């Protein structure tokens, strides 16, 4: 557990003296900055190039998703969740649908479960590919971006064929799937798995043993397992710190307990380990997809769900392992067609909080690397 006093807030009233006098420079990064992955504003307090402290200013993309939810029916709100983490829209939808299903006390039929797992894992890969490309770009390697986007395109094509949308898919419905899979879905997925496996080796070839990459990422943005837990960090960032915890295994949802996969972990909790963990997650996702795609059962894709969704009075918290970490939905129902309150527990938001701890004492260039390695999506941070 970190000493909370070490997380003292920045005194932004420091007058902007000249450098020789103050030895300190307050620099504003963002909200329009190429490396902050959106409209994140980071106020850095520097001593030379060393970061003495920083403060994140967020909210530039705040759309009041939770307020909107209170004014929409359960079904109407479903597409909105796609707009939070727009890189992993399928995962968002899965979390939301499962939470409402739990509240309704229904379960999606097996066929739907399998397709859900396949699409979610594909989406996890797409999200990780986007992360890898932009992260490498931030560190200065421009080529991986194009490689990952080329391959991510194949995933988006599958999404497009399945539901017509590429990014904000709205793929699932409460109680099952929005659409039956198209003809050749299994074949497409299998082709993709065979196609992408050597490509992942290709990414690794460019980066994993690259000396400059090692120097830029090893020992950068270190966070210990204890600190990570205290800061509520989840997902690959937590696992890279050596905590073997994945909601898919710890509190299984969907039908993840039917699949055989490992939880990759790191040791040092630095940027390089987080990179390795995510690269390993690519392969685990492929494993899950391979197992799932061969055994998609026949049957209905929708459970028996009333036309008008009216969950009984009560509240539920349900969370899934999104590509970024624990994505939780806390839903309070008052028995009407509209949720009384929906709270989204966004992984990016909580992970971003660790930025200060990870960056303190590092250099400016490392802040860029750490923002990249946290894999934040501002749509989700600000909601």
């Amino acid at each position: 557990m970190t000493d909370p006093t070490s997380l003292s807030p920045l005194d932004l009233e420091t007058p902007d003296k000249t450098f020789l006098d103050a030895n300190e420079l307050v620099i504003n990064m963002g909200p329009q900055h190429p490396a902050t992955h959106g409209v994140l504003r980071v106020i850095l307090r520097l001593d030379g190039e060393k970061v003495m402290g920083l403060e994140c200013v967020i909210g530039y993309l705040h759309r009041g998703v939770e307020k909107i939810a209170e004014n929409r029916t359960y079904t109407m709100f479903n597409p909105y969740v796609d707009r939070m983490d727009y890189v992993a829209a399928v995962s968002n939808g899965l979390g939301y649908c499962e939470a409402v299903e739990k509240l309704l006390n229904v379960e999606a039929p097996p066929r739907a479960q399998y397709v859900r797992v396949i699409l979610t894992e594909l989406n996890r890969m797409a999200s990780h590919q986007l992360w890898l490309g932009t992260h490498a770009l931030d560190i200065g390697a421009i080529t991986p971006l194009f490689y990952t986007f080329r391959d991510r395109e194949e995933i988006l094509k599958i999404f497009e064929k399945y539901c017509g949308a590429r990014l904000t898919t709205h793929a699932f419905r409460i109680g099952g799937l929005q659409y039956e899979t198209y003809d050749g879905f299994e074949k497409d997925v299998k082709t993709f798995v065979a196609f992408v496996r050597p490509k992942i080796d290709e990414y690794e070839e460019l980066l994993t043993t690259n000396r400059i990459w090692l120097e830029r990422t090893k020992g950068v943005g270190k966070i210990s397992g204890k600190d990570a837990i205290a800061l509520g960090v989840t997902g690959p960032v937590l696992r890279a710190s050596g905590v073997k915890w994945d909601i898919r295994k710890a509190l299984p949802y969907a039908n993840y307990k039917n699949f055989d996969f490992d939880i990759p972990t790191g040791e040092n909790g630095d940027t390089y380990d987080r990179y390795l963990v995510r690269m390993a997650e690519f392969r685990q996702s492929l494993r899950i997809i391979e197992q799932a795609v061969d055994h998609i059962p026949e049957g209905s894709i929708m459970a028996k769900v009333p036309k008008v969704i009216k969950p009984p009075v009560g509240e539920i918290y349900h969370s899934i392992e999104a590509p970024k970490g624990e994505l939780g939905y806390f839903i309070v129902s008052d028995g009407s067609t509209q949720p009384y309150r929906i709270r989204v527990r966004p992984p990016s938001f909580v992970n971003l909080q660790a930025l200060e701890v990870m960056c303190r004492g590092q250099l400016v260039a490392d802040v860029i690397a750490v923002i990249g390695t946290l894999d934040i999506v501002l749509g989700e941070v600000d909601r």
Partner: protein
Amino acid sequence: MHALMQYIQSYLDSDKTPGGAGNIFWATVYILLVFAGLSVAVIAMNWLERKILAHMQVRLGPMRVGPHGLLQPIADAIKLLLKEDIIPAEADAVVFWIAPFIVVLAAFTVFVVVPFGPTHAITDMNIGILFMLGVSSLSVLGIVTAGWASNSHYPLIGALRSSAQMVSYEVAMGLAVVSVILMTSLNDQSTGTLSMIGIVQAQLAQQEWFIFKFFPLGLIGFGIFAIAMVAETNRAPFDLPEAESELTAGFHTEYSGFRWSLFFLAEYSAMIAVSSIAVTLWLGGWLRPFPNLLVAPPWDLVFSLFPAITFLLLAAMCFYNTARMPKHPLFKVQTIGLAGFGVVLGLIGLILFLPAVRLRVNDIFWFSAKVAGFMYLYIWYRGTFPRYRFDQLMKVGWKVLLPTGLALLVLTAFVGMRTELWAELQGVWRR
């Protein structure tokens, strides 16, 4: 009038550079030629970089303006010249205005001594290499003042970074250069030279490119220089001053339009300049490959055909791509343009077969080909490497390259003097 013609013609028989012969007419012609060639090279480099980088990254690059985007750099140049020239309100207008010119001036002036051939240089100073290093280091001044005059945090940090980087790497660079100068003194009179032409002639006299001299010492020196020159020109993986993800665009963040394009021009001509130093010092300058092994006259003929063949191959590539162009009315202009370009290249190739032209151009061709190899390396680095962090960059410069350079210098001196040393030692032993 007759005297003037005589004055012009008198140079043609001389075996000196125009500057060395003191011929103002030809010196002016050479200056114009070099700077025109340089501008063309920068424009071509712009297109090539975008194209090659694109192909490394599984995309096409510019394809719209002209066939295969050949006219893209020209369109870019027009765009840049027509853009509004913004001077920030809080900037120091005078310094802001001067800074890009300092950089361009420094980058262009060094070409005064670059030897494209034994007589193909504007002038030959007997401190040639010193002049090149000195003048190219002046561009730091322009960068620092540009960053300061912008009166903004990011450019200032970028400028401080880049000047610290350039000053640091100059040291290692200088050591590598000195080791070559030691090598030039290995002749009967043990007279070394700083002259760019003299260095190449020393390689010719010793029948060896200096990269292979005292293997692996020459190679190490070349390696040090090859690393330092990338850092010196602020290119990937040492492009920290312009680290897009950290400092947006470094010292030229606040510049736009024409002034920005001056920085661009200076960066690319500086790349060409340092590459020419490397070529001159280690790769035998204008000498053709294997000057010592394949010496018979037939080989001279074979190697002198290379320029023509290269241009014919380029022309053939153009024709091949013309044939592959989509047969659609919309592509008509582009197809004709590409074919025309191929015809021009082919004609140049044919002209290069003429013996009179062939012999004069041969040196320039080999020099340019070697420099072009370095240019390709620059692009390749950019496509492959992540960026160093600032402290790591300094570590590489001061803790790796500098000691290596010092050791190299001492070793080169020892190896160069080994017979004399041996004799001396034997004398001491006998006594």
